[in-house]
């Protein structure tokens, strides 16, 4: 039967290079010594480890738990001991290490107990979906989207087509091709499970016409089943999810939407196979088929690989010709990523490892200016204007790039493949996308910061108002009191604006600094403050009188002087008391604590004192009253003191560090000596053995060998003596 096949715009026909690896059947990769299971292998949140270092784990045991809806668990791919949970190189273009669980294999490959569900139709869909989630199955073709999210169709969405993506349009890769040729029945079984889950009107398998064997195998496996194997013409990138949907159904997934929006669910061949294994065999996703190819690989072909196997292990197994390898790519030549470190592990999405020679993949030519030839626009499978996006990305005009639908770019690389100016277009788009995302995040963050700042400001204003209110109340109360006493010649000002801050600021600092003896101190402080206030008020009255030219000036002046003396005395008393209070804990502390802490405390106190003095000076300067000179000198003195104590503290800290280092260094010679002893011992043993052998066979210069043994003995005794001496010291 023939279905209508739609066409996608653009596309390219790069050399396929599939023959190198398509002809050999799937081989089992050997068990690696260690596997490194990354906690994040796909889009979404990373898993959370549920084993500890030292735990024994079995093959298939869950070792990382999913942490959200778009998150999947990870499993031990072999039995062994958890050796580490920590950073290990993984494939990521940032080259940043990521958390992996390292399992040292015990070589036994002991499985955890498996629970197959052969009669899945008798179970609820939720049960089967949970099984698929628990098996950690992610899309095995592209970005690795958790399959369960796609299969868990909402009840109000009607699925018309379930599509199995067996296109495999990237050059070099043959993993799906081989899998279909060899295990078509199992793939179809998996597809049937998925069909049972999503209840589509029709089930389609899309395969490119360059895989005749796979097409035959799949046709045979589908005989008598309501599954339609649809052959599509070879063109890159027909295997993109949205591209395949369009090819087979003519439907377009809305920008930013999901295939389910148009009634389509699309799954990869490897995923169908994994679903079958999970449901019918009870095995989680712990291995996959990976193509090893490229001219630097001797035994090209497909390997069944345990997830977590280091790439280096696989390459060496496949006969890597190290000197000829010029790049190392995980994935295909069109969309794969450079590997920066061969110790990165194979993950769920690793469909191909490519180790090409320089001749095979020549170095990219230097970027030339864009001449707007439009080749890229003709190659683009989603009808973008790549050259415009390039200009915008280069000029950092990201809003324009976004307007030209940058985010519909699937990064297939067709544009960069055809560009006559060798412009790394995809990198420009990735840069632009990343910058836009970062900018959005920063905008969100700055909005958040604004809210927080405004909330804080509002809170402070409220506090200030409350304080002000209280102050006024207090002033009123005081005024009332004074009025009843009837002894106030000076009018009670409602608030002494300039005196108040000092009075308020002082208790704030002193309260935090000196927790002890609050009663005495507060009393003195209030006294100081009130005399100060009276003095200030009097001074004001004097000033007004002077201005008005009153004749009581002399009397007023006298009074002001008296009050000033009083105020100074009160203040002195307060400061003295405060210092005494402070001195007390200081006096006790150093005895118990280590000197550094004391220095720290002292430095902090000095700094506080200096700051307080400075504040006072500023106020004095602002109001123009007080003995500015002496305040200034006081500030300078305190600053010097504070600096000195800070310096002392720093010095002490440095000294401490030095001491620690010195201690470490002191430990070193012993170690060295021990090593020396061990070394000389080994040498001695070797020499003795050589001598024995020579004596037994009667060959060789026995005299020289004897001499060597004696020398080695001497060296050994000397080393031992040195060690003893050191240990004695």
């Amino acid at each position, binding site marked *: 039967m023939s279905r209508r096949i739609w066409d996608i715009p653009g596309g390219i026909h790069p050399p396929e290079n599939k023959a190198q690896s398509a002809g050999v059947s799937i081989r089992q990769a050997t068990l690696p010594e260690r596997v490194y299971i990354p906690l994040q292998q796909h889009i979404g949140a990373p898993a959370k480890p549920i084993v500890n270092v030292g735990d024994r784990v079995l093959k298939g045991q869950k070792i990382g738990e999913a942490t959200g809806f778009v998150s999947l668990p990870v499993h031990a791919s072999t039995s062994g001991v958890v050796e580490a949970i920590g950073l290990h190189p993984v494939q990521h273009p940032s080259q940043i290490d990521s958390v992996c669980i390292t399992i040292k294999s015990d070589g036994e490959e002991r499985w955890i107990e498996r629970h197959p569900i052969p009669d899945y139709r008798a179970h609820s869909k939720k049960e089967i979906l949970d099984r698929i989630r628990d098996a950690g199955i992610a899309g095995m073709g592209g970005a690795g989207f958790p399959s369960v999210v796609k299969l868990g169709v909402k009840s109000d969405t009607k699925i018309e087509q379930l599509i199995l993506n067996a296109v495999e349009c990237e050059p070099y890769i043959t993993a799906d091709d081989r899998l279909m040729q060899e295990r078509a029945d199992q793939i179809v079984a998996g597809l049937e499970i998925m069909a049972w889950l999503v209840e589509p009107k029709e089930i389609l398998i899309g395969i490119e016409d360059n895989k005749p064997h796979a097409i035959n195998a799949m046709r045979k496996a589908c005989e008598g089943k309501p599954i339609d194997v649809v052959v599509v013409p070879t063109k890159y990138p027909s295997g993109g999810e949205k591209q395949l949907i369009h090819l087979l159904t003519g439907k377009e997934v809305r920008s930013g939407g999901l295939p389910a929006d148009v009634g389509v669910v699309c799954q990869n061949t490897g995923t169908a196979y994994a679903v079958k294994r999970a449901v019918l065999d009870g095995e989680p996703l712990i291995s996959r088929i990976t193509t090893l190819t490229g001219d630097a690989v001797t035994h090209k072909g497909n390997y069944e690989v345990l997830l977590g196997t280091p790439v280096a292990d696989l390459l060496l197994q496949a006969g890597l010709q190290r000197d000829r390898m010029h790049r190392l790519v995980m994935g295909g030549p069109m969309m794969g990523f450079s590997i920066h470190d061969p110790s990165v592990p194979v993950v769920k999405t690793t469909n191909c490892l490519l180790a090409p020679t320089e001749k095979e993949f020549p170095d990219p030519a230097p970027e030339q200016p864009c001449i707007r030839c439009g080749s890229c626009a003709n190659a683009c499978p989603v009808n973008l204007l790549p050259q415009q996006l390039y200009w915008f990305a280069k000029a950092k005009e990201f809003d324009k790039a976004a307007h030209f639908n940058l985010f519909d770019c699937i990064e297939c690389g067709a544009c960069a493949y055809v560009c006559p100016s060798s412009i790394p277009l995809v990198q420009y788009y990735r840069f632009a996308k*990343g910058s836009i995302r970062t900018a959005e995040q920063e905008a969100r963050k700055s909005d958040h910061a604004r809210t927080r700042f405004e909330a804080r400001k509002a809170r402070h204003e409220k506090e200030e108002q409350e304080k002000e209110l209280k102050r006024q109340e207090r002033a009123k109360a005081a005024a009332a009191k004074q009025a009843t006493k009837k002894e106030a010649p000076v009018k009670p000002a409602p608030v002494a604006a300039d005196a108040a801050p000092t009075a308020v600021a002082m208790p704030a600092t002193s309260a935090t600094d000196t927790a002890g003896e609050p009663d005495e101190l507060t009393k003195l402080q209030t006294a100081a403050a009130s005399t100060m206030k009276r003095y200030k008020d009097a001074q004001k009255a004097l000033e007004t009188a002077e201005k008005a030219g009153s004749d009581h000036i002399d009397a007023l002046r006298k009074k002001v002087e008296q009050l000033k003396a009083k105020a100074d005395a009160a203040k002195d008393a307060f400061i003295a008391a405060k210092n005494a209070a402070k001195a007390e804990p200081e006096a006790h502390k150093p005895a118990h604590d280590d000197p550094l802490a004391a220095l720290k405390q002292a430095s902090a106190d000095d700094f506080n004192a200096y700051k307080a003095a400075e504040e006072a000076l500023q106020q004095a300067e602002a109001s123009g009253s007080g003995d500015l000179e002496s305040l200034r000198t006081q500030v300078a003195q305190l600053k010097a003191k504070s600096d000195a104590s800070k310096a002392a503290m720093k010095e002490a800290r440095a000294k401490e560090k030095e001491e620690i280092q010195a201690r470490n260094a002191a430990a070193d010679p012993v170690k060295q000596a021990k090593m020396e002893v061990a070394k000389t011992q080994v040498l001695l043993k070797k020499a003795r053995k050589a001598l024995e052998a020579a004596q037994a066979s009667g060959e060789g210069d026995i005299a020289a060998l004897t001499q060597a043994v004696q020398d080695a003995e001497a060296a050994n005794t000397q080393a031992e003596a040195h060690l003893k001496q050191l240990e004695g010291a």
Partner: protein
Amino acid sequence: MDVLTNNLGAVTALVAMALVFGALLGFAAVKFKVEGNPIVEQIDALLPQTQCGQCGHPGCRPYAEGMAAGEEINKCVPGGEDTIRALADLLGREFVPLDEEYGQEKEHKMVAYIREDECIGCTKCIQACPMDAILGAAKQMHTVIVDECTGCDLCVEPCPVSCIDMVPVKVTPQSWIWQPPQGIGARPGNLIPVRNLA
């Protein structure tokens, strides 16, 4: 007199046209008025909201108000060149490089980090932080809520024991982005030495 009568028609026509178009313009101005954000809001939205005060204003909004009133647009250090560009774009002014007097643009985004074993719990940094991003109580060790810190620097100076450092924000695989290619004439890519291939 002749001149006047000869040109009367033209003058009348011009006056009439002026009136008609004036009325049209006036009508359009009322009818199609763009209800935009007040300019201060728009400027404020472009500022990084670090509230660091490096521009000489006590926070971002006051500076936004200043710029709306004609102040220079090149004083925002944490925003840097990108912000100045956006401001120039919004206000229709010429781009000017960052005024060095207010500080130098940092290469990385920074966050404050308190060396906790050295902190004496004085709460001075808590009071200085415009974001309420420092957690702690008197005599207790303090710490920075990294996600809330905008890297404004304001907590560094008040610390009596100098235990606050500004450290670059750590790049994670999630926050990492591709750098642009080096441009025309450059070969894309770089060589990396091979490790771990026994």
